[in-house]
């Protein structure tokens, strides 16, 4: 994967050196409209007319939502996760698009439909972009604490938030259950590239959940934990609010033509020279993505350096509707 990423960086750099900007593929309200102006029939069960949706300025640099479940393996190149699923498990349906708060459903996996029923288990893998969460949490431990403190009355805590070692990394772990539904939820979470990646396992059978939790079948990037996963190494360093005034040399504000009042969270990668390298529109209408990309391509940042060595930076900018004030953080020390 490192070689793959390096090759992408080299390719992107060569494109920029040649005076070409990465082509914009900011999506369209009508999927594949460039390919199909007309179809004999509208495909059944298709989403051709989209609302706010995710898109990116190029298709080469991985984005969080590009997770795959194939041949028994969940992988997400953006997060550097590879997870070998339990035998026979797969994904029946892909998840919804990313939300305007930067929440992703990366995968929904489980056993074959024929085994669907009270004896089954399932797993939901999500990611929360911590640049855009309205929740008062800065990492996986705090997010798990928040979850525990805001459990609905229907649920009871089964195992209070604690740490768990998975794939030699420290995860946040929390379990709760519903006495009425007789369902149990195991939640493990880790921080990667300023996102909290959450694995939610559900079953009536805690032994089955223990078994799933104990499977040693996950590969993760180095240097990630429940409290720290700030990128670096082969991926950009992620820094919250790097696009504040003191770091921006040239700023051009986008002008939206339609009034939709939705927040538009955008992740950008700034190259070592301080220019925009990659734009990820987490949730935007096509016209908004176009306006933002037209503006951002003119932005110039102060290059960021670690120990005097320039590095790429990944950060978030919220366009459109202003962010709401975050609620107070959950009480109690983290990890308790």
């Amino acid at each position, binding site marked *: 994967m490192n070689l793959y990423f390096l090759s992408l960086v080299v390719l992107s750099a060569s494109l920029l050196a040649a005076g070409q900007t990465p082509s914009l593929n900011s999506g369209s309200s009508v999927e594949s409209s460039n390919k199909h102006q007309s179809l004999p029939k509208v495909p059944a069960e298709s989403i051709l007319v989209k609302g706010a949706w995710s898109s990116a300025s190029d298709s080469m640099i991985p984005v969080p939502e590009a997770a795959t479940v194939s041949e028994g393996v969940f992988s997400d190149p953006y997060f550097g996760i590879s997870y070998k699923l339990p035998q026979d498990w797969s994904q029946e349906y892909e998840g919804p698009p990313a939300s305007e708060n930067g929440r992703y459903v990366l995968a929904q996996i489980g056993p074959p439909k024929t085994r669907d029923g009270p004896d089954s288990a399932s797993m939901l893998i999500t990611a929360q972009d911590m640049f855009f969460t309205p929740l008062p949490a800065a990492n996986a431990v705090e997010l798990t604490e928040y979850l525990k403190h805001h459990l609905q009355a229907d649920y009871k805590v089964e195992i209070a938030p604690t740490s768990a070692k998975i794939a030699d990394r420290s995860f946040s772990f929390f379990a709760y259950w519903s006495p*009425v539904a007789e369902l149990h939820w195991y939640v493990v979470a880790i921080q990667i590239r300023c996102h909290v990646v959450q694995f939610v396992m559900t079953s009536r059978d805690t032994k089955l959940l223990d078994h799933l939790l104990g499977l040693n079948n996950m590969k993760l990037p180095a240097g990630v934990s429940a409290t720290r996963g700030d990128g670096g190494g082969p991926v950009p360093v992620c820094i919250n609010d790097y696009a504040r005034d003191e770091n921006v040399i040239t700023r051009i504000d986008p002008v939206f033509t339609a009034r939709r009042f939705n927040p538009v969270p955008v992740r950008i990668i700034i190259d070592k020279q301080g220019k925009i390298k990659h734009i990820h529109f987490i949730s935007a209408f096509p016209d908004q993505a176009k306006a933002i990309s037209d503006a951002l391509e003119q932005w110039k940042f102060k290059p960021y350096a670690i120990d005097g060595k320039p590095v790429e930076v990944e950060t978030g900018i919220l366009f459109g509707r202003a962010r709401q004030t975050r609620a107070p953080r959950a009480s109690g020390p983290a990890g308790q």
Partner: protein
Amino acid sequence: MSKSRFVSLPLALLLIVSAASAQTDPGVQSASRGTGATIISPSNDPNGFTAFFNDGFNRFREIEAVSNSANNGLGPRFNSNQCSSCHAQPAMGGSGAAVNPQFLLISSGVAPDNTMPSFITANGPTLEARAPFFLNSSGEANTAAPNGGVEDLFTVAGRSDAGNCNLAQPNFAAYLAANDLIFRIPTPTFGAGLIENLDDSTLLANRAKNLSNTLGISGTFNRSGNDGTITRFGWKAQNKSLHMFAGEAYNVEMGISNELFPQDRPLPEEEQAAGLPSSCLNLSGTGYPEDTSNPSQTNAAVLDDVSAFANFMRFLAPPPPGSVVLNGSQVPAGLIAAGSALFSSIGCAACHNPSPGTTQLSNFVPALSNVQVNAYSDLEIHNMGTRLADNVSQGSAGGDQFRTAPLWGLGQRIFLLHDGRTTNLYTAIEDHKSTRSEATTVINNFNKLTSAQQQELLDFLRSL
């Protein structure tokens, strides 16, 4: 799990049998629950709005004509000629009835020179049709040209009160051949005044409480392009207010121009071309808008029809819950309560929130003030996946986004989901699960329940 419930022996046997077999939708509950009454207490109506409700009630059931009657303006295109014909079940103001009144409009002379669309059947759902895309000249769906507007089913052609207007119906056969036609059923309006009177801050706070869910659910709100506030009526929450809801329906469903929509409405494809022909304009002979306020009248009658309709819906009480009969026997209250707890525990309530909050102070009537709204909806729009997607965008809602349908009154609803595709509650639940749907994980949870638990949940839903 221990349950200390008293269950009589025959009923216990019935439950065992029920648990062993597939779960059953108890179906439409026929016993009267008093749905359709006004929320106004006549003894606590300081502003005198009871008269406005009654006036709206009467106008809601008036039969509209094109011209030469007391109620003019119908057409030139329409889906029906009476609000109450579509909003009928289980009482006036509700959703579609068991017998589709649209199926009778040709034989009864309301739409004499029309052909009954193939999808309108005697006992099927009352429908509105929309084409997601315009067709090209070869009859193919032009996916680069979204349409999404209503294709009214009928025209006034052949009516004695419609002059020389001889419009053709939309080419439904061509749209169907291109798989380019979707349907909507009427949304029930009971309790709509309470929904209208929820402040945005209440809905936003309700949403904030739900952000940490472990279900993969992240809804948003549809918003007014005029002032940016939350819109909340219609299948995609595209309408801001009951006035707007009524004004649009009067114009789109009955072809009656009004103070909010002052022109007669052509089909989307006509609007792209030359609009309506002159032979089909001003058919009432009174000019536009066809519905206006009535200065010569007194009291409530001075209002225009749209305002009267809005008042009728605004002052309709929420649908009362009731007992449930399954296979001829009443379901014990304890099982209904268990179903309610299951509904919440597996995550249904994350969107179908039993109460999104309490209304603000009402300037209409005290009955709308400070009331808990038990709508079973968060009034957000959610991505509902490929199985429910209709590829129609309204406001900021995309082709697969729908407002969480309020579930109050579900016990007496016949046709389910936005297009009335099923009458079976179990099917409606399972259809929430598909590619790109926010509800898939919740349905996975539902499928982990035992048959007996699923039965309790279905029973509970029919109690609403």
